[in-house]
């Protein structure tokens, strides 16, 4: 069982800093996602962990052992590539057996383990096919089997679902996560899809411009983002100008839409002026215009999404609000409505003034 | 990517190996001395002067240009038509066409030339009037036109032509306004390659030339068997410069790219 620690990892490509002093530790058996826009350094981090790229500075520890100087074949990793990189001249069985042959296992053991892992990914009867004869989802599972059969210390996945269609992607999310939990392997997953990262991970590492912006479990990331950038990248957000004040002996957040208690996870311990308050679209309720403690607003547009309805509203001062309800549309563009905040604590975005 | 450190060194050595004989010829052409020595004994253009006053070489150069232009033009028409056919027909048939069109490239040039020699003799024409020579050069250039045009047509969607027709364009206008612009770059680079291959061809010209005529490579070859003066280097450098000028001109006029 393996823990991973990254210390002060730095990597330059020419003048640009692809990785800027990355430090991180990953617990044994955890599923950690690196999330960020393209070019943020998440793939580079993975390549450095795998040994495909060198780092200029820093240490990589697997179970406390520094592997930064080891070539990839000696790091004992399992990797699934975005393109799958299945060897086209080998059958599924030969692809899966390759890593075991490199470890010089006896023939019988190889055959058994290939069989077992193909069972695990439901491809036992496809062993003699060539990769090109398989569907995208099947190729994906072969790639997974090939990486897992060598029982690596850690599993690295580089945007493995990017080439699949939407339905298959949802299926594979569940499949991979379930498999990972069953085996209990430490897993690092790179993606630019925040929904994917949220659905699968124990922990998410958000990266921007070669730096780590925030490390948090999915729920904390969504509810308590550390910066405006993170808040906008992880789901849709409204920002209201507000301030923190005492209210009945407690700290409360005062916004144009009303006052609510301060989220307990916040580091703020004293009243503070002029802050950006995060309001997710689903924490705003639409009321009749005349309802008590409601603020008047005008409906600008309505988007029906089946299980959800998305509204864009405008307040009297012109500020636009994204609102999401779980009910079918009950208003149309131009309608006058009222809005109020749901009864939940509010998150003040740290170090960020409007 | 981790690469053995020796690899770049080896590659540079190979690139030097590839360029060395060409550089040597160019440098030798500026030799002031009467014999081919290296490094040159002083720089001069005297051998270029000799060359430009040598009627035999100049005639050969003009002959080479004429035959290259004529052969490339004929191949351009035939090869483009074949490429257009490949695009419109079934993949199986297109494969056969491709095989046939690249055949002259795969068959030994000497053998093809011998066959043509025999054939034209049997026809009663022999090597007279440069007909055999022209046909030989058409065979040399044809594969290059075909390969380049079909490559540029590979991403061509036949429904584009249908779209143009549905918008009211006649078949001719469709070809001129839709098909032609899309294959222009392939045709240009095909003609360029064809021209250069024809301009530099040796075996075909050697076996099929009419008595008393010679292309530049042949004249140079004949000269080299008997002489060792730097005039040969001047002629060689001149032909290199002509080729490069044509490449650069084509590149600037038609703006084609050579690397994918």
């Amino acid at each position, binding site marked *: 069982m393996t823990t991973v620690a990254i210390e002060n990892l730095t990597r330059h490509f020419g003048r640009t800093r692809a990785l800027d002093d990355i430090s991180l530790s990953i617990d044994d058996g955890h599923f950690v996602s690196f999330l960020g826009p393209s070019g943020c350094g998440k793939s580079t981090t993975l390549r450095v962990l795998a040994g495909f790229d060198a780092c200029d500075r820093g240490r990589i520890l697997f179970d406390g052992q520094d592997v930064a100087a080891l*070539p*990839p*074949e000696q790091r004992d990793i399992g*990797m699934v*590539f975005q*393109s799958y*990189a299945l*060897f086209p*001249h080998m059958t599924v069985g030969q692809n899966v057996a*390759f890593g075991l042959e*490199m470890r010089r296992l006896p023939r019988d053991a190889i055959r058994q383990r290939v069989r077992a892992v193909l069972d695990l990914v439901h491809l036992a009867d496809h062993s003699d096919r060539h990769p090109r004869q398989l569907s995208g989802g099947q190729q994906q599972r072969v790639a997974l089997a*090939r990486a897992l059969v*060598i029982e690596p210390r850690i599993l690295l996945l580089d945007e493995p679902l990017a080439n699949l269609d939407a339905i298959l992607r949802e299926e594979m999310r569940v499949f991979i996560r379930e498999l990972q939990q069953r085996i209990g392997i430490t897993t690092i997953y790179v993606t630019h899809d925040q929904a994917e990262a949220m659905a699968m991970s124990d922990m998410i590492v958000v990266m921007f411009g070669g730096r780590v912006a925030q490390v948090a479990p999915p729920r904390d990331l969504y509810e308590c983002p550390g910066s405006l950038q993170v808040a906008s990248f992880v789901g849709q957000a409204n920002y209201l100008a507000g301030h923190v004040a005492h209210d009945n002996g407690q700290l409360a957040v005062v916004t144009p839409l009303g006052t609510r208690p301060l989220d307990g996870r916040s580091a703020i311990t004293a009243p503070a002026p002029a802050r950006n308050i995060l309001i997710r679209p689903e924490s705003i309720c639409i009321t009749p215009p005349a309802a008590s403690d409601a603020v008047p607003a005008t409906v600008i547009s309505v988007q029906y999404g089946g299980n959800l309805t998305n509204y864009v509203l405008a307040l009297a001062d012109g500020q636009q609000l994204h609102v999401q309800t779980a009910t079918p549309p009950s208003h149309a563009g131009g309608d006058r409505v009222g809005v109020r905040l749901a009864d939940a604590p509010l998150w003040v975005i740290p170090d960020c003034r409007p | *990517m*981790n690469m053995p450190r020796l690899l770049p060194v080896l*590659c540079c050595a*190979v*690139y030097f*190996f*590839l*360029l060395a*004989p*060409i550089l*040597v*010829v160019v440098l030798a052409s500026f030799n002031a001395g009467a014999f081919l020595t290296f490094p040159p004994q002083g720089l001069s253009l005297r051998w270029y002067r000799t060359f430009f006053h040598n009627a035999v070489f100049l005639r050969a150069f003009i002959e080479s240009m004429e035959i290259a232009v004529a052969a490339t033009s004929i191949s351009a*028409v035939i090869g483009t*038509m*074949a490429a*257009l*056919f490949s695009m*419109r*027909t079934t993949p199986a048939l297109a494969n056969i066409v491709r095989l046939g069109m690249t055949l002259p490239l795969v068959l*030994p040039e*000497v*053998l*093809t030339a*011998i*066959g043509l020699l*025999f*054939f034209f003799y*049997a026809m009663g024409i022999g090597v007279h009037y440069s007909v055999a020579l022209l*046909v030989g050069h058409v*065979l040399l250039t044809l594969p290059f036109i*075909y390969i380049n045009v079909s490559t540029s047509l590979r991403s061509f969607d036949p429904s584009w032509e249908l779209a143009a027709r549905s918008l009211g364009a006649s078949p001719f206008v469709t070809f001129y306004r839709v098909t032609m612009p899309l294959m222009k770059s392939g045709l240009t680079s095909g003609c360029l390659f064809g021209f250069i291959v024809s*301009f530099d061809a*040796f*075996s075909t010209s*050697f*076996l099929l030339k009419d008595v008393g005529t010679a292309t530049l*490579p042949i004249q*140079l*070859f004949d000269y*080299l068997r008997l002489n060792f003066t730097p005039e*040969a280097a001047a002629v*060689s450098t001149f*032909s*290199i410069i002509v080729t*490069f000028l044509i490449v650069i001109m084509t590149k600037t006029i038609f703006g084609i790219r*050579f*690397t994918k």
Partner: protein
Amino acid sequence: MRKYLLIVPAVVVLLVFLVIPYIDIIFISLHPAADDRPYGSGFTLRNYVQVLTDGYLVHQTAMTLWIGLVTTCATLVLGFPVAWFMAHSSARARAIQQGIVLMPLLVGIVVRSYGWTVILGNNGILNRLARDIGLTRSVLPLMYNSLGIVIALTHVFLPFMILPIFGTIRSLDPALFLAGRSLGASPAITMRRVILPLTMPGIQSGCVLVFILSVSAYVTPMLIGGMRVKTMPMTVVNTLIDAFQWPFGAAQALVLSAIGALIVLVFFRLTPLRWSR
């Protein structure tokens, strides 16, 4: 079916000027020689018997094929690493390298062979250099022998080896090499087990192209060998043009081609089967 008109000219040209002439070669090789004409009438196998029993010609054929094989191996050994390096260079560096590899193709074969005579000749650059640094007192035999021919042919045909291999390497997913490494294979083993089989189509076409070209080369052996080493194409041209014995020359050319084709077939048999996409 108006579209079939498009292919008519090409078919006519290939049939009349390629297929028929090749058949013609076979026909003429079966005719007897004649004094006043290129070939006489009647049917005979004597030309073939003559080619296959003449010790000098047999030796020359073997020599020609040997030069072809050595040239093919040399271009492969030099060309594969270059193709690999080129394919893994940055876009800019790759364009420059492609230019260097393509450049010799823009320069005529006579000129390039001439360049090698300047380098390899008895008073050439290499010999002068060797004398100047005191490496040797006598003349290094670099030209007028098969070594010189192989060196020059390797140069002349190297681009034909590099380009097809480069093409197949470029078409491979770069992650394949990394996948091999991630599964515990060293670079050498990944190369042998993964990359080599996948680049085999490029290697095959490069080898076949270079072999055919170097076995049928005329100019380079002529200029470098200086008539002291004779290869079959030189003898064939001699027989046809100077001795005017067309049937005998045709038979020589066909025997060489047949043996060459046989070697190509054996080569395809020995190399691992192409995997098709």
